[in-house]
């Protein structure tokens, strides 16, 4: 199992780009970043906030190179500065509090959508041109085109406010004590239903579309004909011969979609008042809590890169051709 140095190069450049963006953007504002930020804060500029900003940007009169080295040193020791809004908590503390919830939400939504989308795509390709295909496939394309904001607001209004089926906020019932008991875990899942269902349509649509087109070309392969000729049941041919091999492009697509999924989760968390990274980012952006916003970009970039790396590894394990080549 080896990952090509090319892929690693791509990830390194992406990370460097995010770091440079984080470093440069605040310094592009007129005046020193400290003054500009304090000006942006306006009436919100408490002495604590000014202190936090000054601490973050250190010696703003030093040469750019020195500032950059200082910035990198801070990153290397996981020092992303101090939050302006939650002074004196560090950015790392603020972000790690909410990161787990976002991870839970995004992973659940991806697993759920993979199951649904891949099955729908495989069946649509199998019965290409049938009624199932002509309804499900255009629907998938439509699901990709509707922004998560719209789905979130509609779900919230229908099932949260009008029908009152699901809770309209928080990750679990605040009256419960967090712990590994049935009531708490149940409450966590119950609170996650609406956010997960909001994130899923986009994912299901993407997975269905990718799966369908890759499955169609796989179904033309000789080994599928062979499977049919052997007299295997269509279930075995469809999933054991076709879908299994058609899954690979879906995995690649999943890695590339992660950025969009994070975008969707930001909006979803805001609408459902779910205490994840997205909500933290939103409150930070309203309060112009720059250190947190910057830390957020870095964290999401690292999460996306990590997930891409993971997909690369899985890809190497799943694709027999790559597995052979590595041995």
């Amino acid at each position: 199992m080896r990952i090509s140095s090319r892929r690693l190069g791509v990830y390194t450049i992406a990370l460097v780009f995010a770091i440079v963006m984080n470093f440069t953007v605040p310094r592009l504002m007129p005046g020193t970043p400290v003054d500009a930020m304090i000006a942006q804060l306006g009436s919100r500029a408490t002495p604590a906030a000014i202190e936090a900003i000054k601490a973050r940007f250190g010696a703003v009169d030093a040469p750019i190179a020195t500032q950059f080295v200082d910035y990198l040193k801070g990153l290397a020791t996981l020092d992303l500065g101090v939050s302006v809004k939650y002074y004196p908590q560090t950015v790392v503390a603020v972000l790690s509090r909410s990161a787990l919830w976002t991870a839970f939400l995004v992973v659940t939504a991806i697993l759920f959508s993979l199951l649904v989308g891949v099955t729908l795509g495989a069946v649509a390709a199998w019965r290409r041109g049938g009624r199932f295909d002509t309804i499900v496939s255009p629907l998938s394309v439509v699901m990709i085109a509707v922004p998560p904001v719209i789905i979130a607001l509609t779900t919230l209004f229908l099932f949260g406010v009008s029908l009152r089926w699901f809770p309209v906020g928080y990750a679990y019932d605040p009256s419960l004590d967090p712990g590994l008991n049935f009531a708490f875990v149940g409450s966590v899942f119950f609170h996650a239903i609406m956010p997960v269902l909001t994130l899923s349509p986009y994912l299901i649509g993407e997975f269905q579309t990718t799966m369908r087109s890759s499955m169609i070309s796989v179904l033309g392969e000789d080994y599928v004909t062979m499977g049919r000729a052997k007299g295997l049941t269509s279930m075995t041919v469809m999933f054991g011969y076709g879908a299994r091999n058609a899954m690979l492009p879906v995995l690649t697509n999943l890695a590339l979609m992660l950025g969009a999924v994070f975008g969707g989760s930001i909006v979803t968390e805001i609408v459902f008042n779910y205490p994840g990274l997205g909500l933290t980012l939103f409150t930070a952006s309203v309060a112009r809590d720059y250190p947190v916003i910057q830390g957020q970009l870095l964290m999401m970039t690292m999460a996306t890169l990590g997930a891409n790396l993971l997909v690369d590894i899985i890809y190497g394990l799943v694709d027999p051709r790559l597995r052979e080549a590595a041995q």
Partner: protein
Amino acid sequence: MNAALKLIRQQRKAIVGVVIILALCLMAILAPVIAPKNPSARVGRSHQPPTIEHVMGTTKMGRDVYTQFVWGARTSIAVGFATGIAITALGTVIGLIAGYVGGRTDAALDLATNAVLVIPNIPLLILLASFAGTVGPLAIMAIIALTSWPWGARMTRSQTLALRTRDFVTAARMIGEPGWRIVFVELLPNLLPLIGINLVGSIIYAIVAQTTLEYLGFGDPLQVSWGTMLYNAQNSSAIILGAWWDIGAPAAGIALIGLGLALVNFTFDEIANPQLRSGPALSRWLRLNRARNRNLEAAR
């Protein structure tokens, strides 16, 4: 040409899509005629449900939702389409150069493309937008375009690579056609279906991204658009108060334009890649095929 017309006539999905898009565009263009009032004027009480006088009700600020909906279409559709065009242009040019020039240029451009591709867009947009303060439609356009060209660039590059070794390109090079001519006259026309898909996909993406940014409050609050309408409705707790019309109107507008574009995109995909075709032609063929198989069985 006739074949093309026939193909289009068979694509009912595309026609529905185009009709939806055109209707919304027409509404946006005719805004001064069909909604002559000022969208920012206070015309009624706060959060009035739909009545004859205010067909889509009023907002928290007592503004007419219908007027805002019609005028908001202007900004939303214009920014969406302009951004989509900008994304496509950037992606096509970068993809074409990378694919045609090859060598080190290609390696560098491809590396950049893949790197921008893995950076999460929306968080990056939020970083840029929050440092810029509130951003107008033009800034939103620039930010979205600069962060989302890689999808198109990748597609265009791989297609260009495939076309580059074709005989007609080699022939053109041997005749001594200059590079720019080969790129724009020989290669570009062959890339048109791909550019079409890229364009519609980019417009969809641009509308999603624009709505997200404006909903998060980074839009210019004085500029009426569907995204800022959602933002204002959210801020006045329209959903919790049960003022569904306040959220519903802009949401329906965005969903409709998304639906129209998606239908067009689906058809583009099928035209560019016949393997994916479903639609009436394929089902007719499958039915014939089944009938033929049955006949063969019966004959045996």
